[in-house]
């Protein structure tokens, strides 16, 4: 039960850092070789060598962060908020050293200018056990929205 609780707290913290725009702290949740991946559809098995909506290591995450923080990131000038709810957290695999594989569901509401958009889907996390908590080796995001055309684009991680 403790693992379940710890994993849930970690996933909540992950989405809270996104919603409060603490990009650097969010990136620091990842292991040095950690990957954030959003495949074009659920059939994809690996992020490497294939089209991806996001497929970012920490270096590319840093580019995205610096860009969003730049005063001339025109598309992010208007009011812009997100709100995640994460649930259905289920530990699928657990190793002796404490590393886990976890699935969960999310719903994100995004406000941009006067428009509200909804994104929903599932997370798959490969988490490495650290002294105090976990670190993300892989965050896979399968959005239910991927099949539809993007009415405006995604600017930060979901």
């Amino acid at each position: 039960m403790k693992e379940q609780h710890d994993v849930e707290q970690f996933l909540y913290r992950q989405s809270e850092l996104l919603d409060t725009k603490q990009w650097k702290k969010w990136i620091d949740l990842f292991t040095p070789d950690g990957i954030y991946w959003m495949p074009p559809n659920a059939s994809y098995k690996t992020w490497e060598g294939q089209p991806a909506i996001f497929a970012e290591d920490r270096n590319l995450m840093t580019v995205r962060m610096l860009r969003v923080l730049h005063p001339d990131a025109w598309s992010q000038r208007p009011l812009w908020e997100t709100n995640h709810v994460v649930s259905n957290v289920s530990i699928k695999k657990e190793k002796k050293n404490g590393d886990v594989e976890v699935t969960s569901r999310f719903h994100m509401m995004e406000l941009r200018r006067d428009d509200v958009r909804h994104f929903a889907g599932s997370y798959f996390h490969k988490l490495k056990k650290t002294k105090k908590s976990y670190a993300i080796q892989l965050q896979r995001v399968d959005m239910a929205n991927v099949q539809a055309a993007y009415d405006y684009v995604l600017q930060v991680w979901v």
Partner: protein
Amino acid sequence: MLRERNADFSGMVEPDRVRKEVYTDRQIFELEMERIHETVWIYCGHESQVPKAGDYVTVQIGRQPMIMVRGANGKVNVLYNRCPHRGNMLCGDRNGNTGDFFRCSYHAWTFHHDGKLKNIPMKAAYEGTRYGKDNPDCNVKHAARVQNYRGFVFASLASEGPSLKTFLGKSIVAFDDMCDRAPAGEVEVVPNCFRVIQHSNWKLFLENQLDALHPSVVHQSTGRAAHEVEKILAKKASGGAAPLSYHMLSAFATVTIDKWDDFQTINYPYGHCILTGYMGLRPQDPDTLAYDKVMIKAYGRKRFEKIVGVNIHHVLVYPGLSVQSPLQQLRAVRPLGVDRTLTEIWHFRLKGAPEAIYRRSLAYYNLVNSPATLINADDLENFWKCHQGLASDGGDWVSLGRHHGRDIEKNGEVSSGPKMGTSEAPMRNQMKAWAKYMQP
């Protein structure tokens, strides 16, 4: 003022400026669809999207929903997505395989891949009527003309008009450059389409593609961010260079405005245009050298030098195709309404080229052209703002005057002047073509 069907467009386009209604008036939009998109050659898709008999993709040509389908005889047909019975669309999906024939989901009329009627169920009910195989109106209507150039399939909904090759003219280099860069001389689509909607008139996208001034202003944030990380990675790297994908992004900031002026635009009849220049994607790294070897083996050194020496950044095929041949990217522009436009974004594999070369194209596709794009997001923002401003009463004209009067015209081709790569010559040329299409 534009209510009458045969509106006079001659006063709307001047050599260095355009009336705002050209972008915002709904009736002009309808006429554009009729006289431009539903008349000229429009890109439907690449034949590798439909490799097997019965494979189809649905595509919009102007306001017309169409199907591109591979027949059992191998021929690629382009049909109206409409059952001749009650008008139902035959295919409701974006792609798939229809099997040996189309079967309408409403009353089960069936059709061959070329649109010919196969069967009407409960035939007896039609005895003595005009409906049956002898009546061509019972076939699915097909596009008036379909032509394939090196795997790229185009259709024209008008039976008269220039051939595809005549229409493309020198912009055909978009497809030659892409295919020639493959050791096998052809490309294959990567089966993924990123679809992004912009809230603006379709022409704003086309104009932006060859606007060499905008990157330094619009994409500064991403260029700078990428350059910061690129510098750190270069320091750490054993060879002293960061991965090429960082350069693709940082170039938006490191290529300064005066350098953009070193490039050139060459503008052609029908509204097509080429932006020359190159982001320096022919470095001497091991991947490129390995690719060069395969290419030299396939083509011989002389032809190889000619192929990789083609100096293109971007080709615009009016009125709806933007091709970055050196990176095998293709964007098809589908107008959905006067203020709403869909872009369908594809990339291709060079057949016979090493995997590392594909990865280069892929990196650009993911970083620049995906729905999480670090680049196009700021373009979309400007397109929206632009359309909003144009729809206002704050002014009547759009200025296309940058370096006007300094274009060099020769044999129907218009080039931007020397050291004038940021000239608005492409927009002037597009609008000149537009006026001609609209006032035939």
